[in-house]
């Protein structure tokens, strides 16, 4: 049955894909597809329930990156089951509800896809059996929450709220990651099973305080605990179904889930009790207090949620096992009543167009059914008997009486708990009285009425649960609560009873006091509101936005400093870094001379080198006359190719030659747009600086080269030499390395090449459109654009060049050549046609979409690589064989040829995409006025 676990996760994914692919489906069909995920999930869970309630644990795992301790592990126990029920159950109702909540203009597929993405992420958290995997899903919930809060992206408050929520939760997530990594290192494994069984060892470790604080940071930010609670009220800019689902029932419980999940491993110390209980207590009180003063219904519910989350956290911080049971119980109850309250708020918002409690009054007359349902749920929130909220609150009260976390001041806790309950009753009363009674509506845009029939159904289900659990707790949730608590504590909890009536005791008294005092407080609220109004409060969101703006400002300043937009600066920075990084190790060596002796001087090569040096120097001297510099650098390239050939690297020589020409053409195309001479502007100090930099580079690089050449390096090349023929089927080792041994690199490189070409193509559109009417010396241009001789000869040369490139392509595997050179030769031959005939002549004859050529090249290379998957081999495993064909003799076929074809097409496409389009650019903007021919 464990095999079913991945399916539970993949069904939401399936629905997402369908929703995004078929956007034109009707709203009902989209809702059905979205509903498929939770329904199927519940059905898949159903057969596992009996075993899970008996304490079984299902686990399924695959290797992912075992080196890093990463494994896909899915683990389902009763605690995860409980949360899965919440996720699926509330998710089901929320999806159904959203069908009626969203207006016709809201893009539904995006909403459902994000919601399902969240569902998937949340399930991932509760079903993870590996803490690193858990963390990934954890971050995914933050991201999907961001997408959902900013769903109405045209609204500024939605964008800001989303940004705030993401910043806080993701920052906490990073702390959590560090904490989890440390935890895994201490426990020796990232597997949950191992970690849970090593509790004492973890607690005894010196790093325990750090681990605990980091993990608590993650949990507290996610679960909106004080002082990180401020993001939650701002997340209320989300559509109400999202608030009901993420920001009350599930996502904000993720932090609490994590605390419960890791309870056996990291809880039970004084540090834990003081940190967790203090955070919980403060959250409980601030949430309850501020909830009363909200005028926005959702704001009230948000602060109330914060308060209840604080309550649960406080329970986890109490040093009794029963407190954990109470916490889990309250998670269920809170999810049920708060989700229904949010749905009520959504209905009210939907039907009145407002969420301001100062405007919406007396709705009882307009929507009695909704009002009754909401009132029941609010009563549950206040802790009225016969409702589920009452039960867990009673448990909470009784636990506060049986703890000693605050030492001698522990008696304060029941008192403060009662105080929080007073406020909780007061804001619940405000919710009921202000919204449904208290006179008539003020200044509403429309006359409210009951919502569509089915919009109420989810609420009805939830309210029924409130009452059901309130009256028959043991029968409805007793089993799962016990099993979940056992799973959480890793041991059977002490006996407790889930009954409605425990007799006249202290907790009951606390409830009564809270109830009466709460009503009194609400009736006398005017004074308190006046008192509260005396505080100058800056909203958290404004503070946050201000900080974001400041941060952006800082970053801008930094990037203006680090990226002044001057090419010289970048190159200088890069070169200095190279000099320092490469030069420092040289200082550690005693001598450059290695164990290899020097070869006798080869005078011919020496002369070539001298020519090359002369040309390089001339390039530098004439750098201001750009065309001259270009000619000189061509000499450098030519000599370099000759030297490559001399030292047995014909492949390099071929490539160097081809690249040389392509670059020369490119540079000339670019030169056209530049002044032919650049003015002499460098100050002497600048020249000196550049000289020092160039000299340092020369010294370091020269020394490194000498070092490398005189040392006997045991490199990988001997392996390549030995295996090229047997492993890759080619005798040209360079080519076999490119298309086979290091095929993945090549694949990456051609992808980069394609992207670069597309990028350049895109950048070209913004280039200034002018055509200089005269050359550097003020001569107007010659008048015959396409000399006849050149045209005729270039037409004749094209087939020859194509033939040569075919030749180079096919023999590349065994002798110098290959797809790259062949591609460049083809591209150069086609560029020659452009040069000789012009764009207008070539365009109708070369009916090729260059970008498509690039894409097909990369695709072919990828398919060649992916083909080996069919045979269960890793990506890009090469294949070759020899065939005997009568008359023709032996022929070799290799998958590398197909891969090389991809390289070829990409190179041709990229080169033409850049050169031909740069050329076309000037044509398109040719000025009207042209000389006489």
């Amino acid at each position, binding site marked *: 049955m464990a095999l079913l676990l991945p399916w539970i996760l993949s069904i939401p994914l399936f629905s997402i894909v369908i929703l995004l692919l078929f956007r034109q489906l009707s709203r009902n069909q989209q809702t059905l597809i979205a509903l498929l995920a939770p329904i199927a999930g519940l059905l898949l869970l159903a057969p596992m329930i009996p075993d899970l309630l008996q304490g079984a644990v299902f686990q399924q795992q695959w290797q992912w990156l075992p080196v890093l301790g990463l494994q896909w592990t899915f683990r389902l126990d009763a605690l995860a089951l409980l949360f899965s029920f919440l996720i699926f159950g509330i998710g089901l109702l929320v999806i159904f509800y959203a069908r009626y909540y969203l207006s016709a203009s809201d893009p539904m597929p995006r909403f459902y896809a994000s919601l399902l993405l969240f569902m998937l992420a949340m399930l991932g958290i509760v079903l993870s059996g590996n803490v690193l995997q858990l963390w990934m899903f954890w971050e995914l919930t933050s991201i999907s929450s961001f997408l959902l809060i900013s769903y109405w992206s045209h609204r500024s408050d939605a964008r800001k709220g989303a940004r705030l929520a993401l910043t806080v939760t993701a920052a906490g997530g990073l702390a959590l990651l560090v904490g989890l990594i440390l935890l895994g290192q201490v426990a020796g494994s990232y597997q949950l099973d191992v970690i849970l069984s090593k509790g004492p060892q973890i607690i005894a470790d010196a790093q325990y305080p750090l681990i605990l604080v980091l993990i608590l940071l993650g949990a507290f930010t996610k679960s909106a605990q004080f002082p990180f609670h401020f993001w939650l009220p701002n997340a209320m800019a989300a559509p109400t179904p999202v608030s009901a689902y993420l920001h009350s029932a599930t996502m904000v419980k993720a932090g609490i889930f994590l605390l419960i999940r890791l309870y056996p491993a990291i809880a039970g110390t004084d540090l834990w009790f003081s940190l967790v209980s203090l955070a919980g207590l403060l959250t409980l009180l601030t949430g309850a207090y501020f909830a009363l003063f909200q005028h926005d219904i959702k704001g009230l519910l948000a602060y109330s949620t914060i308060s209840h989350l604080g309550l649960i956290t406080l329970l986890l911080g109490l040093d009794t096992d029963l407190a954990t049971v109470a916490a889990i119980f309250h998670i269920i109850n809170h999810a049920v009543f708060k989700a229904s309250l949010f749905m009520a708020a959504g209905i009210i918002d939907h039907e009145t167009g407002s969420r301001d409690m100062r405007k919406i009054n007396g709705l009882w007359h307009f929507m009695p059914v909704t009002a009754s349902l909401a009132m029941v749920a609010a009563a549950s929130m206040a802790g009225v008997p016969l409702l589920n909220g009452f039960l867990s609150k009673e448990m909470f009260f009784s636990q506060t009486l049986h703890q000693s976390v605050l030492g001698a001041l522990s008696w304060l806790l029941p008192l403060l708990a009662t105080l929080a309950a007073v406020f909780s009753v007061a804001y619940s009363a405000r919710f009921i009285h202000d919204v449904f009674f208290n006179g008539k509506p003020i200044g509403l845009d429309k006359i409210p009425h009951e919502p569509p029939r089915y919009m109420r159904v989810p609420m009805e289900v939830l309210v029924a649960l409130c009452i059901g659990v309130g009256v028959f707790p043991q029968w409805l949730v007793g089993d799962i609560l016990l099993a979940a608590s056992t799973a959480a504590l890793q041991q059977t909890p002490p006996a407790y009873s889930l009954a409605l009536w425990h007799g006249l005791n202290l907790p009951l008294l606390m409830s009564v006091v809270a109830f009466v005092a709460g009503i009194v407080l609400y009736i006398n609220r005017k004074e308190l509101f006046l008192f509260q109004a005396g505080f100058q409060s800056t909203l958290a969101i404004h503070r946050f936005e201000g900080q974001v703006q400041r941060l952006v400002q800082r970053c801008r300043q930094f990037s203006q400093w680090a990226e002044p937009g001057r090419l010289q600066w970048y190159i200088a920075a890069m070169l200095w870094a190279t000099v320092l990084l490469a030069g420092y190790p040289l200082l550690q060596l005693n001598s450059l001379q290695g164990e290899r002796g020097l070869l006798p001087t080869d005078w*011919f090569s020496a*002369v*070539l080198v001298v*020519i090359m040096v*002369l*040309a390089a120097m*001339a390039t530098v001297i004439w750098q201001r006359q750009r*065309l*001259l510099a*270009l*000619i*000189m650098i*061509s*000499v450098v390239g*030519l000599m370099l*190719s*000759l030297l490559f*050939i*001399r030292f047995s690297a*014909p492949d390099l*020589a*071929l490539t160097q*030659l*081809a690249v*040389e*020409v392509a670059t*020369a*053409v490119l540079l*000339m*195309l670019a*030169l*056209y747009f530049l002044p032919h001479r650049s003015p002499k502007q460098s100050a002497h100090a600048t020249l000196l600086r550049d000289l020092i930099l160039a000299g340092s580079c020369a010294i370091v690089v020269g020394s490194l080269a000498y070092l490398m050449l005189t040392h006997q390096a045991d490199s990988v090349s001997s392996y390549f030499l030995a295996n090229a023929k047997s492993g890759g089927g080619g005798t040209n080792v360079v080519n076999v390395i490119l298309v086979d041994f290091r095929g993945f690199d090549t694949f990456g490189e051609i992808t980069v090449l394609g992207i670069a070409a597309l990028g350049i193509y895109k950048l070209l559109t913004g280039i200034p459109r002018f*055509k*200089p009417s005269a*050359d550097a010396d003020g001569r107007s*241009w*010659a008048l015959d*654009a396409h000399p006849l001789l*050149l045209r005729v000869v270039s037409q004749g040369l094209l087939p020859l*060049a194509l033939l*040569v490139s075919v030749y*180079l392509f096919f023999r590349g595997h065994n*002798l*110098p050549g290959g797809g790259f*050179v062949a591609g460049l*030769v083809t591209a*150069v031959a086609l*560029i*020659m046609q452009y*040069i*000789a005939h*012009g*764009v207008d002549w070539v365009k109708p004859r070369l009916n090729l979409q260059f970008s498509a050529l690039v894409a097909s090249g990369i695709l072919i290379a990828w398919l060649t690589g992916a083909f080996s998957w069919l045979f269960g081999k890793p990506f890009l495993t090469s294949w070759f064989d020899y065939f005997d064909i009568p008359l023709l003799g032996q022929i070799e076929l290799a998958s590398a040829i197909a891969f090389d074809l991809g390289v070829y097409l990409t190179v041709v496409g990229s080169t033409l995409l850049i*050169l*031909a389009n*740069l*050329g*076309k650019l*000037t*044509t398109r903007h040719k000025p009207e006025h042209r000389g006489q021919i």
Partner: protein
Amino acid sequence: MFSLILLAVMAVIILALCLNIWSLLRGPAVADRLLALDTMYINSIALLLVYGVYASSQLYFEAALLIAMLGFVSTVAVCKFLLRGDIIE
């Protein structure tokens, strides 16, 4: 003896290359330099041909062929640039 002659022939061609770089640096006009560059291309081909005989290997002829082809394109492109400014128009 034969290989000595080959070496001597290569030396003569390299001498030609040296004369070319001299012409190239001397100029005076861009056209002169371009002519010198083109001659360098051709002389490099010559060098490769002799080197092929010297090494008894046909491996170098492709490079020579490619120099002939690509050198031509690059010289023509520079000419076009000097004549028209816009080499692809």
